């Protein structure tokens, strides 16, 4: 397996979902304490159906971390919360190709960020 596959490189160089959502409904901010990567996922929610309408990211990390952040934004778009929280390593690898073992934590980090964004939305909602 190539350390950086073509698909990963492509996503890394040309991310589609980069940036903030200004009036985001939820923000998931996570850090991997061991490798130092920081990921921030912004989501916009269809409040009636509780579906993720839009997702964007900002990531401080390696090429895999950036490519995976971008990919997970694609994957959670149009999904219900219960579907979105289940999207992890396997779903990401299915789309982006095999991920080297040492980089699997990047996918876990992305999953944590999505879950945190959903939690953030729920917390804000209950406060209202």
């Amino acid at each position, binding site marked *: 397996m190539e350390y*950086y596959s073509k698909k990963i*490189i492509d996503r*890394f*160089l040309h*991310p589609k979902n*980069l940036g*903030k959502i200004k009036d985001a409904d939820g923000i998931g901010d996570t850090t*991997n304490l*061991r*490798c*130092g*990567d*920081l990921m*921030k996922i912004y989501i916009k929610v269809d409040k009636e159906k509780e579906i993720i309408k839009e997702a964007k990211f*900002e*990531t*401080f*990390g*390696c*090429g895999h*971390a*950036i490519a995976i952040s971008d990919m997970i934004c694609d994957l959670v778009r149009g999904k219900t919360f219960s579907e979105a929280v289940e999207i992890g390593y396997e779903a990401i690898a299915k789309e982006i190709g095999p991920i080297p073992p*040492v*980089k699997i*934590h990047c996918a876990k980090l992305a999953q944590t960020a999505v879950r945190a964004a959903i939690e953030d939305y729920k917390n804000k909602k209950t406060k209202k």
Partner: protein
Amino acid sequence: MSKTYLDYAATTPCDPKVVRAMSVYLKKDFGNPSSIHGFGQRASMALGGARQSLAEFLNCDTEEIVFTGSATEADNLAIFGTVRASKVPQPHIITSQIEHPAVLESFRELEKRGVKVTYLPVGADGVLQAVELKKALKPDTILVSIMYANNEIGTIQPIAEIGELIKKVSPKTLFHTDAVQAANFLDCDVKKLGVDLLTLSGHKIYGPKGVGALYVKRGTPIGPIMYGGGHERGLRSGTENVSGIVGLGQAIRELQNPKSKIHNIRTRQLRDKLIKTILKIIPGSRLNGSIFQRLPNNINISFDGAEGEAIVVALDQRGIAASTGSACSSGSLEPSHVLMSLGLPEEVAHGSLRLTLGRYTTAQDIEKVIRVLPGVIQKLRKISGYGQS
């Protein structure tokens, strides 16, 4: 893909003269140096020639050279070999926090086995203060191992000063230095340095991979870590890698060529230009390690808001081969132990880029980095949301 190679601290291409010298012993004179017939004797003579070259370079006797399969093996032999040969009941050994893993992991293993170990800190500039060592030396200190020049940040340690100090304060203590990165640029005269053991590598000096050497001063108590046919005066059994050793010998001879000095001056000029320009045109960048006590080919710079491996991958896509000493690439995920030892915050340690120049680096290579790097950093900062509110 990559056309501009700026990773000479990782490895170097073989000098054409090295390749020519080696090929004779892969094909025509392929004999086993232990054989009595002509094939064997020609191979044995070749080993002698290489040994002579190393002895001249190090200003030592030929019998004080032990060829090994790598510099890692030479480091292991120096450390495990002297500790096991020591008669001190509770031995104590000293190294620095910024050593290459070949030394650091050997010390950690011995620590697990009950040997007392001191890991000396370095200053914020990456240079060890001899006074720190003086404080750490004890009556039962049997070995000090301090690298000559660091592989990540290129800082040069005051080996001669340390050697002198050890002789004065604790004359029985053995002194080892890993000179793998230093050999290209610095004086490796073992008498001037005051070392008992010194490690060299083939592939960092335009020689082949898979060969290293250990200088072992005559009379140094040391035992083997590998057993077999008793090659290399019993210190390293295993049929000699004849062509590799010949290649190492040839590479060492090339280092002594006056041309090599001229190359090194040019390398320093190109390096200084690149450091100055990067620090000037990319805000939020800083040089890691001393600017003065530094190998002339090393650049290690951190960029706020851009992660090291991402920078390396992006540069590779633009035809520049560089490296990062930190995180993820090594599989450990931990930030570079060297940068952390300088007291840098973790995010800075994660954002470092190492560029190491060499004999074949051109002014065009440097121009290319100056052209490409700012855009790469800018893009990664956009991805990380750095500098935005």
